């Protein structure tokens, strides 16, 4: 057994608990005597039973930030508990936009370093060892946190698998985690939300992901990727090159700064395989790549590599799949 108490941050989307939080709870169960979940936003009690089923002994409600960005208020609430001596030995945070904001603020407030890009956690005596993908995930560094706790870990989604267990009977108790003094740090406000229309499965949950890159040559050619994804019941994805170029929205991006995906099949079309892209997809169970350059790095991870032109291979693939359905 590693540490006494771990807090897992639960960032909900549309009120629902995302897989990333359940992965962290699952891992935390094996590393600490007590695991507690920290959640915020409206109606935290609604998800208490689900969090309990994954091992949370209590759910701490950091309050509803309303229209504020969550970094300052959530970090403030956790820091206030630590200052009162009620803090945990470690805090696990999923590497999302808001997760990184909370981690950065918490680190500075507590004067503790934050350990980022974590892909593994192990017990080490009465402490924790963390594993990090470095150099784009080609090497794994193992590090030990040496200071006074809490240790702060920002973990890449899909580093662990989520399984229910360790729960108690019924929903765990929900306790308030009062916010600390936020000074002038909490003045950024969301005035409008914009959601991009997407049909089909979510990119990071899809069983098949078809991604396109700069090798498609033009934004119009991305229609092939959309069509293939639809035919395979999967989700379309993209490299950063074509997101930056404005061909597809950012929500499509796979990689270091985008989504981490772990589908049964990942089909990479016209993508070179930069380390920052691969870190988001190299754990797919099967990888198929189409690239006209036989030396493209993507072929080093592909189970099936097609050296060919996307404009020749993909239309035929689409026809063949249509013919079957």
């Amino acid at each position, binding site marked *: 057994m590693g540490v006494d108490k771990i807090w897992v941050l639960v960032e909900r989307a549309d009120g629902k608990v995302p897989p990333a939080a359940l992965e962290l709870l699952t891992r935390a169960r094996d590393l600490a005597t007590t695991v507690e979940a920290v959640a915020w936003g409206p109606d935290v009690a609604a998800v208490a039973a689900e969090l309990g089923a994954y091992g949370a002994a209590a759910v701490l409600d950091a309050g509803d930030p309303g229209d504020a960005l969550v970094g300052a208020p959530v970090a403030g609430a956790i820091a206030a508990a630590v200052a009162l001596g009620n803090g945990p030995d470690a805090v696990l945070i999923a590497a999302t936009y808001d997760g990184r904001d909370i981690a950065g603020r918490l680190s500075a407030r507590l004067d503790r370093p934050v350990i980022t*890009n974590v892909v593994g956690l192990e017990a080490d005596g009465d402490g924790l060892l963390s594993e990090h993908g470095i150099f784009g995930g080609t090497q794994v560094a193992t*590090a030990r946190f040496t200071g006074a706790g809490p240790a702060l870990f920002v973990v890449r989604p899909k580093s662990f698998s989520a399984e229910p267990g360790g729960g108690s009977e019924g929903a765990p108790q929900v306790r308030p985690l009062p916010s600390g003094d936020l000074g002038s740090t909490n003045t*950024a406000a969301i005035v409008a939300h914009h959601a991009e229309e997407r049909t089909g499965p979510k990119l990071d949950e899809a069983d098949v992901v078809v991604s396109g890159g700069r090798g498609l040559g033009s934004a119009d050619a991305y229609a092939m990727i959309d069509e293939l994804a639809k035919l*395979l019941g999967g989700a379309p994805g993209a490299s950063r090159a074509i997101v930056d170029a404005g061909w597809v929205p950012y929500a499509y991006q796979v990689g270091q700064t985008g989504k981490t995906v772990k589908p049964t099949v990942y089909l990479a079309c016209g993508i070179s395989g930069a380390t920052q892209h691969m870190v988001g997809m190299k754990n797919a169970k099967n990888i198929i790549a189409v690239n006209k350059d036989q030396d493209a790095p993507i072929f080093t991870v592909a189970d099936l590599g*097609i050296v060919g032109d996307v404009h020749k291979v993909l239309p035929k693939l689409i026809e063949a799949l249509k013919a079957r359905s």
Partner: protein
Amino acid sequence: MNVAVCVKQIPDPAAPPALDPVTKNLVRTGKLILDDSDSYGVEMALQLAEAAGGGEVTVISMAPGGETSGLRTALAMGAAKAILVSDDALAGSDALATAKVLAAAVRRSGADLVLAATESTDGYTGTTPVQVAELLGLPSVTFAKKVTVDGSSVRVERQTEAGYDEVTCPLPALVTVTAGVVEPRYPSFKGIMAAKSKPLEQLTVADLGIDAGEVGAAGARQVVVDVAAAEARASGEIVVDEGDAHERIVQMLDQLKVI
């Protein structure tokens, strides 16, 4: 409006990276360049200062060995002045120690708006800027894909999982920008010449009033105990398309029962 931009100077990403065998820190010797990720912040700052009808852009960097080449690039793009913090005591600094140094330098610059990139190319912790904001007691808006300044507040389109949020925030504030927020300009010949005589202040940790024990390897609270190659995937079958490679893909999808 005065804008400060944190810019990291990094080893050329095209060159293979290396770790010091003893300290297991990234080796950062030799010539450094302006991190591409930060060229977006520099461009954004120049455009915002211009749109506000004046004000200076200051670029701030912490780097070893008195390195200034990346700062010169930013000056050549049009920044007015630069602050470099370089000190042997900073070797082995983690993100929080870096943030303490940058925060002290930002304070000196007297900026109304601080820009940084969402993450650097070589370190990619992505936490340094928000740590700077917290140390300065500033609000922050991360992952900006569009930034405008309207008098005393900044308006940001912030990327989200679902799309983007429109966020407003009073100045002073810190904003991190994504690649693609603006198209960075190339320094002109005139810009490169002008950069040579622009003010570049070089400071030590002591100049910033920071205790050397708090930063660098002395202040780090994490030790790397092992570095090993990640499990490599066995490379698979390679098929050169002769007009029928799609059939091999269909076959594989079939075997995997996804069709």
